[in-house]
């Protein structure tokens, strides 16, 4: 099956500044694809190019396996950079325009407004909305006509913590419904919770892309402790496949050459060696740490 979006050697410059350099990757069907990178890394530029609001200097892209057309964009719900609406019109009238351009039924407007909790304010002018409400309206516009592909550029901008959680839940629900979601963000904790694939950009260069697990090695380890700290240390040395043991106060962090064993296995192993654990916690390196490590390595 052809990828939903395929980028080939995309380059873009603003004068002497190279915003994107030779970027290529594919977005598989049904994936939640995170485009990661710090501010100014080229995420929005990349999405601007594939939505035809920016012009490339080199390279090409294909949507649904075909050269890009405006008809394809009608099938994609896109929030790019900021919510763009007519300030003097109400939410409902703004969505009428969006629905008419996308050729989606006007009857869908109430549904999407309810989904983002703006139905009660549908007749208020856009200019009276708070930043979070504007962002939610933009998400509502994306959902018009229930598109199979969604492109979200920093979708939680301006939202409060509960709003962020709601959008995260919404993205998870949409992904569960089989939608392909392309999500650009610099909030890695947000991406970590929802993405299946990532592309990592730094200063316009693609550092890595692919499945989250392969693109960003998120090392795992076990953290454990006992009342008999010294004896525990001796027992830990006897565990097969251990790479490194680090003492941290009364606890030990145990790293393995192979994938970490199950916590229950380790608990049993220690018990059999006469040690009763009072603390046992499996740990995993956060996407944020993995990302920082990777981008630092590239910078260096």
């Amino acid at each position, binding site marked *: 099956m052809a990828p939903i979006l395929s980028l080939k050697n995309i380059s873009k410059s603003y004068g002497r500044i190279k915003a994107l350099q030779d970027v290529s990757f594919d977005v598989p069907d049904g994936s939640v694809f995170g485009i990661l990178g710090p501010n100014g890394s080229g995420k929005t530029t990349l999405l601007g190019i594939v939505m035809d609001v920016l012009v490339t200097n080199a390279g090409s892209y294909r949507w649904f396996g075909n050269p890009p057309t405006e008809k394809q964009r009608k099938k994609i719900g*896109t929030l790019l950079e900021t919510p763009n609406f007519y300030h003097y019109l109400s939410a409902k009238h703004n969505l009428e325009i969006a629905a008419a351009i996308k050729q989606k039924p006007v009857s869908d407007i109430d549904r999407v407004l309810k989904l983002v909790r703006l139905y009660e304010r549908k007749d208020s002018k856009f200019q009276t909305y708070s930043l979070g409400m504007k962002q939610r309206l933009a998400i509502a516009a994306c959902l018009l006509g229930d598109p199979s592909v969604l492109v979200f550029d920093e979708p939680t901008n301006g939202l409060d913590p509960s709003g962020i959680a709601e959008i995260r839940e919404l993205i998870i629900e949409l992904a569960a419904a089989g939608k392909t979601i392309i999500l650009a963000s610099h909030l890695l904790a947000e991406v970590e919770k929802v993405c299946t694939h990532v592309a990592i950009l730094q200063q316009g260069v693609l550092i890595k892309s692919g499945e989250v697990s392969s693109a960003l090695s998120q090392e795992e380890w076990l953290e454990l402790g006992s009342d008999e700290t010294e004896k525990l240390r001796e027992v830990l040395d006897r565990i097969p496949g251990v790479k490194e043991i680090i003492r941290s106060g009364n606890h030990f962090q145990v790293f393995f050459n192979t994938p970490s064993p199950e916590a229950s296995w380790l608990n049993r192993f220690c018990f059999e060696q006469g040690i009763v654990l009072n603390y046992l916690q499996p740990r995993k390196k956060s996407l944020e740490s993995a990302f920082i490590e990777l981008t630092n390595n590239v910078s260096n």
Partner: protein
Amino acid sequence: MRDFLNTLRIEWLKVKYYRTFWILLAVIVVCIPAFNYVIYDFTDNNFPKINGQNLLGNPFSFPFVWNTVPYNAGILIFMPAILIITLFTNEYSYRTHRQNIIDGWSRNRFIAVKLTEVFLLTIFVTGVVALTCLYFGWLTHKTSEPGVGWRQTRYILYFFVEMLDYSLIAVLFAMLIRRAGLAMGIFFLYMIIEQFVVSLGRNKYKVTWVDYLPEEVADRLIPQPFGRRMITPVNNALWEKHVPLYLSIALLYIIIYIFVVSWRFRKSDL
């Protein structure tokens, strides 16, 4: 065709509830007859009458009214330009020009419908000018000769060309500058500078090329209508001889503006 009508319907949705649009349009509709009435009143009451006839002739009677009203309306041509600049720069300041493309319009469609909007506004204002001509023509009742009333209606067409020329200059400034206030300021500045260059070139340096500058050439399509008795037949004949040239150059400018505006929108970052 049906597809493009649907696109026009979307443009209608953009202005249907836009109060500023309706206020500016109402100002245009009111000001064209009102300004003409002020001139009519002034010319009727402030000049000596010889044998009951005004020294300036009867500029508001048929068939001269077809020249007079478009000429006066030409002085107010900055009003629709303000409306056009507002409608264009709104898209830039709200960034909806990007959103319309993202949602599924092609760049060609966006610019085509915007230019069509300018075209329709020009037809509308020309219609207001034509109705104003009829009103003043019938108001003055200065001729009973059959058929005279419809002579010289070609000035309505010339007004259409003049307004389209000015409107597309407004579009060009709006697109290049993107901010309403600045675009309007530059538009007015350009009007003044061009008039200054024309006056200087024509009267001081005696050069004729200034007659073909973008706004001047369109202005020249509608000659000054007052004081016909003082205009010699030679001047009339000279103007008549030049009209096809003025018209051709004005139309050429219009084509150039459309080309530049479309090309820029299609090829640049939005």
